[in-house]
């Protein structure tokens, strides 16, 4: 009888720890922000001819032009900067 109550209490502790872990993950996501699929974190999130710049996929030619001369994505001289590309869908 005593051992079964001890087992039940240890199960309760395990469940409580699991719940705390889930809460911790939820807190982490809430504070850090779990992004949607529209933000890129890696260059391979973007299509083959694009790179990830400031969370957006930008065509490589435009991004190279941006690095070479233009100061921002919006001010690309040729107007070729394309930030409308979304990261590859899953």
């Amino acid at each position: 009888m005593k051992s079964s109550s001890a087992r039940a209490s240890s199960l309760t502790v395990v469940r409580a720890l699991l719940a705390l872990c889930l809460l911790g993950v939820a807190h982490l996501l809430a504070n850090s922000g779990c992004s949607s699929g529209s933000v890129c974190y890696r260059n391979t999130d973007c299509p083959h001819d694009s790179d990830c710049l400031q969370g957006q996929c930008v065509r490589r030619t435009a991004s190279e032009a941006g690095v070479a001369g233009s100061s921002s994505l919006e001010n690309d001289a040729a107007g070729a900067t394309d930030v409308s590309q979304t990261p590859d869908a899953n």
Partner: protein
Amino acid sequence: MTRLVKTALTRGSVSISALLGAMFLASPAHADGYLLDGNFGIGSGLEGGDTGTGQFGWRRARLRITTGIDLRDGESQADALGFRAFVEIEKRATLGGEIRYERWLSHNVGAYGGLIGVVTPETLFGGSVGMDFVIPFGKRAGLFLEPSFSVLPVGSDLPSTGPLVWLLFSAGLKLGL
């Protein structure tokens, strides 16, 4: 005289052929070699990084298929060297690998640390730590559960100077080979 030479030649050729036969026909020595375990599993989890805006964000990590082997020292089975290859199968597929030192605390619980990286189509390199839990099915097979934490600060796949972080959970089949 000729007879003596013939006898010597015969003895010599017999000795050499016996030696060569022993060398080439004998099965390779296993001594106390390595115990080999094979793994095959899938994994995913959370992927965190800085997109270049200065904010660190998280999202679901790409689904990956992992396979590899563990080499355990026959004498000291607590120590092992693990090799893994993985393919991320979402978005643009990537191929990567991992080499790790594993320390098995018991037959079914282990911890590891090692180097991890993606090699194509872009590169990404860093370190990884994790744990392995094996639920045995019979003598040679088991289900492995593997939580891991990786930090990857170097590579052409990174859009900014910040590292990429993986909090992954993998599961699959482990076989004693």
